[in-house]
């Protein structure tokens, strides 16, 4: 099984993709997901604590990810 994760802007460039299929089973914690993503090619370009959204809401790393959730790894925002 894998968990799809959306990527944007500088993170899409870092991983060379707009979506990652992370080799991990849900349910798991956001922290587990980030740990595995960090080990993937391009993951060394992530900051110490990247922002994550689940179902379009900001979450902390101890939040559980369920099958079917929309997960996004969010670069530092820079709107305006």
């Amino acid at each position, binding site marked *: 099984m894998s968990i799809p994760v959306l990527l944007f802007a500088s993170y899409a460039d870092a991983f060379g993709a707009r979506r990652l299929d992370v080799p991990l089973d849900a349910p798991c914690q956001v922290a587990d997901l980030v740990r595995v993503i960090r080990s993937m090619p391009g993951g060394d370009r992530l900051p110490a604590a990247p922002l994550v*959204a689940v179902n379009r809401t900001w979450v902390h790393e101890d939040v559980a990810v369920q099958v079917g959730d929309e997960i996004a790894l969010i670069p530092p925002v*820079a709107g305006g």
Partner: protein
Amino acid sequence: MTVSERDGLHVAIVSARIDVGALLTRAQAPGVGAVSMFLGTVRDLNDGRPVSGMEYEAYGPMAESELRAIAEETCGRIAGLRLVVEHRVGTLDIGEASVAIVAAHAHRAQAMDGAREVIEALKRRVPIWKREHYLSGDREWLDPTKVQA
């Protein structure tokens, strides 16, 4: 692209040029006595580097829902406030507006506070990114955690 509406509140992430006049018209109402507008525009120099344009990318659905939440929270704090907010995505030329916030109220203090609160929250919370295009041909995503935005 996407639009969110309720009485006195309009937020949208748009790809077309922002029509400032239309936003001002939309914010108007008989009880309005003060209208404050903030425009963010693309400038030609950043951190000493000549800039030729700016590219904006958004996580569209979340950007709109965060923007809507910010607008509703601001209207909750400032009773009677009307807000019209649009943020543009795509590649913009120097001088073009990337974001427009129109805050309308019976009185000026609330209108001006409303516009200020929305732009400050937008910069902290809304998943939008910008990549500067330099005259040298280089392109770089801006990271406000590292440089002054």
